[in-house]
């Protein structure tokens, strides 16, 4: 080795690998998305996204705000997967807003732009029924929001 000090130095430099600054920044950890099953839910948010092509596929989830406060969220999953958030909300006419978040193939979690967020609307929460608020993203265009209601099975 004494004969080839320059070679040894080069080999050592090659084995050292790139500098720390050359590594890509690791993606941020996903937001807390642990889903706790709620007993006797009276509200359900259903989110459906139509993904036009594979390049647009990513990961998404939706937060549920009631009267301006976050009350729950759907699970994180592929955009094309239907997602649900079942909640037990206080009875009454509640202003509900859904907020959609995306994790693109490259980048960080991003709140979808205001133009593509669903509007806030009132939902009457009643015992004995489940109010189902369906948010649907089609291929292009703002999302659609529809309310339906079904009776809960008696225990």
């Amino acid at each position, binding site marked *: 080795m004494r004969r080839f000090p320059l070679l040894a130095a080069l080999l050592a430099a090659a084995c050292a690998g790139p500098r720390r600054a050359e590594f890509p920044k690791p993606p941020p950890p996903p937001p807390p998305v642990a889903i706790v099953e709620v007993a006797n839910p009276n509200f359900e948010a259903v989110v459906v996204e139509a993904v*036009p092509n594979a390049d647009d596929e990513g990961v998404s989830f939706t937060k549920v705000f009631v009267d301006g406060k976050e009350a729950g969220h759907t699970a994180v999953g592929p955009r094309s997967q239907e997602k649900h958030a079942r909640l037990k909300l206080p009875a009454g*006419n509640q*202003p509900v807003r859904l907020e959609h978040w995306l994790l693109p193939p490259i980048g960080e979690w991003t709140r979808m*732009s205001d*133009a*593509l967020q669903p*509007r*806030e*609307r*009132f*939902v*009457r929460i009643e015992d004995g029924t489940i109010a189902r608020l369906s948010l*649907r993203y*089609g*291929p*292009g*265009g*703002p999302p*659609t*929001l*529809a*309310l339906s*209601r079904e009776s809960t099975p008696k225990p």
Partner: protein
Amino acid sequence: MVVTPGHRMIDRAGIMYSWSSSHTNHTIDPLKMFPRRREFNEFLRGLTFILLMGACGPTKEAEPNDSYQQATLLKSGDKALGTISSPHDQDWYRLDVGADGVATAKIGGIKDVDFIVSFFDKDRRELKRVDETTVGGDEQLLDLGVSAGAYYLVVANKNEKANNPGQVYELRTKLDRATGREREPNDTALTAQPIEAGGLAKGHYWPAKQLLSEEPGAAEEDWYSISVESPGLFLLNIDVSEVPKVDAILEVYDTNGYKLKELDAGGIGEGESLRNFGVRGPGKFQLRLRSKYKNAGNPDVPYDLLTELLPYQGASEFEPNDQRADATPLELDSISGTIAPTGDQDWYKVTSTSETRQLLRLELSGLAGMDLTASLRDGLGNEISFIDNMGKEQPEIMTGWGLTGGDYHIVVAEKSGKKSDSRQSYQLARKVIPFQSGLEWEPNNSSTTVQSLKVGESVDGYFAPKGDEDWYEFNLYQKGVVVLELTGVINVSPTMTLFDQEYKETSSTTAPKSGEPAILERELDRGTYFVRLKPADAAQNNVRDKYSFRVRAK
């Protein structure tokens, strides 16, 4: 003696064709004139001699001329006189051509003989054969493409019982310049005649039958090929003139033999026209021209095949654009197109790359004799709006549609699907404007695609297209009296209906008359409310004047 002026023949479809000529057909009743056969034969010999001597110009066949080695030399432009000595007699004529040209050969019919005339090249490859008439009928070979060298014309008979060795037939030939002419044989894609785009080719739907085809009963067809040498996008325009008795079909094929377009808009005796057919250069394209009905042809009137190649500049449709995958990008402010052939649909693509919301407005001009419609479709081709507000010859307007990024398609068509006219073009104009608060955002035609408003805000929109209804929603955060105000619009008597957040109708009002406003005032609880605006009559619409709708708390 009965003299029939001119030539005539009748094809198998029963159509009689005739052309004027100096040739006259002499029909003699020998029983009346010559009671004895000997006298008759002597007369015939004498008559033949007199005719031959009198017309010293024509070439007399030199029997034996039953094979190409014995062929009688015939100068181009000459006529030949000959006889059919037996049912199986064949008369070979050699045609020596000095330069490129187009040759024609016509033979006048004689009694008892059913002529077949063939055309061979110097290697005795049969290039064309004609047998359009029966016994006594004339035959003609047209548009024979020739170059310098020897060719052979063979006159034969098909009637086994023919027995008319005395009557002389006349075979006329003619040589014209090749410029702007069809050059037979061009009956297959392989033998397609190259033509320059931007030129004229005159040809005939003749003969009606393609006797040398392997397919029995094959009809005549003329193939042409056009080479686009330069790289880029071009528009090809093709016009085929009308020919009496013929219903033409024009087809365009690519170099792989895939049919790209078929035109059959005109009927019998009408032409065909292809406009704005998009081609990519460099490339080669083939045209196939034929008569729709077998055995229908016309040796007397030629067709004119006129082609034009123009660089594509985005200002016109790029045919074929009959389906989503072939949609012409609509990138300029306007584009022109034609409805041809019948049932034509023109697809255009508008791509919105903006992250912000935009409104698309379309204006489609009217066309004489047609009622045009426009269909707006999403990126997958699903119809999202149909515009048919006006009637025949009137323009159509799409007042505004919300774009949110991605592809949209516009399909222009004629309403009945039965009209076409390649001679007139429509204009499709587009305008993309940024969306602003206070403008209607289509689609807002249902409670799910409802447009939200805040109490105190107003919005301007259109009752268009026909059958339009506009939904708005607002949240009322405190119980109170709310006033809904809708201004009047000419030609529309609007109905305003209020729904609660569970989509139950709570109240409704209709403007008393067309053009008058509608007002609704209600005390409402806290909640979300929907308002539906629509004309009382679905046929009412107005693409010119906006309504203004306002929600306010009293």
